[in-house]
């Protein structure tokens, strides 16, 4: 057996998901992100996190041994790499709780042409979700301090997400 050939073949089969985090001002974001990464890992999907330094540091401190999180990348670098087609992912999941989150989700959808999953949460989740008028799968919940409403939605949609997108 040629070990190198096997490794490359396995790498091609491996699926990965980009989790694009928003501003970490809404408390549930980090917890939900880690729970989602746990779920993705169970489905054999490697999570890659992009976010601003504070959002990434919250993940780093919460998961120091990277049990759940895989690679972490700078937000601007991530967008530039997607735009220049230097990187592609199997799934694109964007955390949205404000207008900026909607803008990032629209950007990822426009530059990849892929279906984006927008996790819309926060106090004004319905209002924010209503401003999303581009092709997108919305997963919405009024989750601000308590992550359970969004956790339940993730439990419902994750099997569908990993087998249909």
């Amino acid at each position, binding site marked *: 057996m040629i070990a190198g050939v096997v490794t490359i073949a396995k790498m091609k089969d491996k699926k990965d998901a980009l989790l694009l985090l928003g501003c970490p001002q809404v408390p549930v974001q980090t917890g939900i992100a880690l729970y989602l990464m746990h779920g993705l890992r169970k489905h054999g999907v490697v999570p890659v996190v992009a976010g601003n330094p504070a*959002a990434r540091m919250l993940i780093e401190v919460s998961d120091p041994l990277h049990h759940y999180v895989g690679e972490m990348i700078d937000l601007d670098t991530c*967008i530039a790499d997607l*735009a220049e087609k230097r990187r592609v992912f199997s799934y694109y999941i964007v955390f949205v709780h404000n*207008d*900026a989150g909607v*803008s990032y989700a*629209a950007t990822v959808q426009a530059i990849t042409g892929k279906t984006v999953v927008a996790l819309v949460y926060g106090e004004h989740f319905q209002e924010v979700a209503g*401003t999303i008028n581009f092709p997108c799968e919305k997963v919405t919940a009024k989750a601000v301090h308590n992550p359970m409403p969004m956790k339940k939605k993730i439990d419902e949609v994750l099997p569908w997400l990993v087998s249909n997108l």
Partner: protein
Amino acid sequence: MACIESLKYDIILQGASFVECREYVKAHCSEFVTVNPGFKIFEKAIIGVPPILIGFDGDTITFPFTKPCYGTYLLRTENPDEAARIRSIKK
């Protein structure tokens, strides 16, 4: 080329939607071009809901700039080189 945050710029709109940014550029700039998200301006990929409008008044550029924690700003800055570069690409 300077990064956006080190430029001398005026903030035209703060916490704006992309519809508001588009309307402002159409109403107040003497010319404009339409770009897609990911288009580079001042070496940074532009973020936003398409269509994104970049306005010009001579060498002055008016463009949206989004930050995750602060939302979208419409900024205006004078930069002959960048204005010429964008015009040449979007001809």
